[in-house]
């Protein structure tokens, strides 16, 4: 029992580890910020399932990158952008989208497994793509992550309002001159980029805990267009940073810590919302205390 405990949590030489893993902590923070913001639109546009498909193809790309020596970053970006664009262009209607996603997902996973089986390098690299690894963030990889996340966040803030308009009612937005197709494709590209960087850190199987769970939790407790992105970002940051702090001590990958924290936050938000609802039966969920009713 003590053995298991020390595998999960061990904090000897913690201070030294923190300094050594400065890169990893920075990466986690930036990823949390990106995931929290992107997640708001993943929820608003009903794309959680799509995120999963994109991450599987991103995994295939990363595995191919590893096998052919092109590089994991390049490979995972190529994979996730391909998936995101396919879903964005072919699946504008929800029904089409679901079937396209279901077709892409096993194909991506299969492709990735082929590449990993053929790969003869370090085994830790293989496992890392599926379940995440945070310790080996070297400077060039951190730089690529910072650049990609920077682009995603900046672009998302620029298109935030019209993208929200299009997500609420594409017909009305189009009537006002908003290009709904262009914006949807643009968002899919940003989503692909965000997924690619997430796959490298938390792993292909657990991307949803960064790109979906925090926003879903935030939506439970608020409907404010300002508070939801703020809370979502806060939740994602907590999960990522909390996850890495705990992962440093133990010997298992970072992802279970991240997913668990993310899940607990979600549970807490649900409980809060349920409690709040019971208190005010007629009051719909939302931070609305300041307005008289």
């Amino acid at each position, binding site marked *: 029992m003590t053995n298991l405990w020390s595998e999960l949590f061990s904090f000897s030489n913690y201070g030294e580890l923190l300094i050594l893993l400065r890169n990893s902590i920075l990466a986690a923070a930036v990823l949390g910020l990106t995931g929290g913001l992107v997640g708001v639109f993943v929820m608003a546009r009903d794309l959680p399932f799509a995120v999963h498909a994109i991450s599987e193809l991103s995994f295939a790309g990363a595995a191919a990158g590893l096998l052919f020596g092109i590089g994991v970053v390049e490979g995972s970006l190529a994979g996730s952008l391909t998936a995101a664009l396919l879903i964005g262009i072919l699946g504008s209607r929800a029904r089409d989208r679901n079937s396209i996603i279901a077709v892409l997902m096993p194909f991506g996973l299969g492709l990735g497994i082929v590449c990993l089986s053929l790969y003869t390098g370090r085994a830790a690299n293989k496992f890392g793509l599926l379940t995440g690894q945070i310790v080996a963030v070297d400077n060039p990889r951190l730089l690529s992550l910072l650049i990609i996340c920077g682009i995603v966040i900046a672009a998302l803030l620029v*298109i935030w*309002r019209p993208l929200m308009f299009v997500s609420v009612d594409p017909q*009305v937005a*189009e009537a006002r*001159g908003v290009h709904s197709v262009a914006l949807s494709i643009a968002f899919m590209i940003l989503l692909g980029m965000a997924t690619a960087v997430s796959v490298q850190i938390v792993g292909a199987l657990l991307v949803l805990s960064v790109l979906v769970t925090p926003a879903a939790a935030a*939506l439970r407790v608020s409907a404010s*267009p300002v508070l939801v992105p703020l809370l979502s970002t806060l939740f994602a940051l907590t999960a990522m940073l909390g996850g890495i702090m705990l992962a440093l001590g133990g010997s298992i990958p970072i992802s279970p810590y991240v997913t668990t924290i993310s899940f607990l936050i979600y549970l807490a938000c649900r409980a809060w919302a349920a409690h709040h609802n019971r208190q005010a039966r007629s*009051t719909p969920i939302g931070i609305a205390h300041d*307005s008289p009713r």
Partner: protein
Amino acid sequence: MTATTSQRAKTRRAAAKTPIVALRDASLRFGSRTLWSRLNLQVHPGEFVAVLGPNGAGKTSLLRAILGLQPLTSGSIELLGAPVRRGHRQVGYIPQQRLVDRGIPLRARDFVGLGLDGHRFGLALPSGARRRAVDTMLATIDATSFAASRMGNLSGGEQQRLRIGQALIGNPRLLLCDEPLISLDLNQQRAVSNLINASRRSAGRAVVMITHDINPVLGMVDTVVYLAGGQVRTGTVDGVLTSAVLSELYQTPVDVIRTRGRILVVGLPDTAYEGHEAAPGHPPGGLP
């Protein structure tokens, strides 16, 4: 100050002469099927146009054509004196009802606010003027009590009022509504149609409304456009909604009965059923 006022008055007078919408010999065909052809229509400021016709007659396509989202097969459409282009800031559009998803992080007031600046890039900065504009509109559409509620939690009638608020807050010259009264109870129908009617004359705003039932807007409509079987009839309510005109359009005997200030259409083919019977509890005489 006086200069700008008189200038504004002058532009308003000039604007009053140019029709807001002008369709000339407009036709729309999908494959071999003609939805409507040789449609000529001018909509002037303050005018209320009702578009009627059976399902599939191309009513929604007509609105989309005016919005520049549906190219014509032939003919032309001008909006505010210029050929239509894709989307227009001076047009408010209320498409057929579609409920807002719960995953949308917007409260009622944010939803209405999208009508002001939802098309703009960049983040919105907090602004007192914007806030006041939204508050005023919420009061106009009687939505103040649920202004802070999540959109996805509101009823169909509440959402519909907010959609009208969202369309009107941009102060459009033209309001296009696609069945705005559907799925509303009689009180709400009256509230919504009065809201649309009240907003038009003072603002010089034209309204084009698709409706399957003319009765809720009977006292308001200036012009009726009736689309059926690839044909178009345009005119006043009395000129178009007659047994002779509708029988010719549908090529089957149709009776138009006027009773207690309401219009009932009897004998339509099943696929084209419209003209609701008076609902129980509906006051005789219909709407003013």
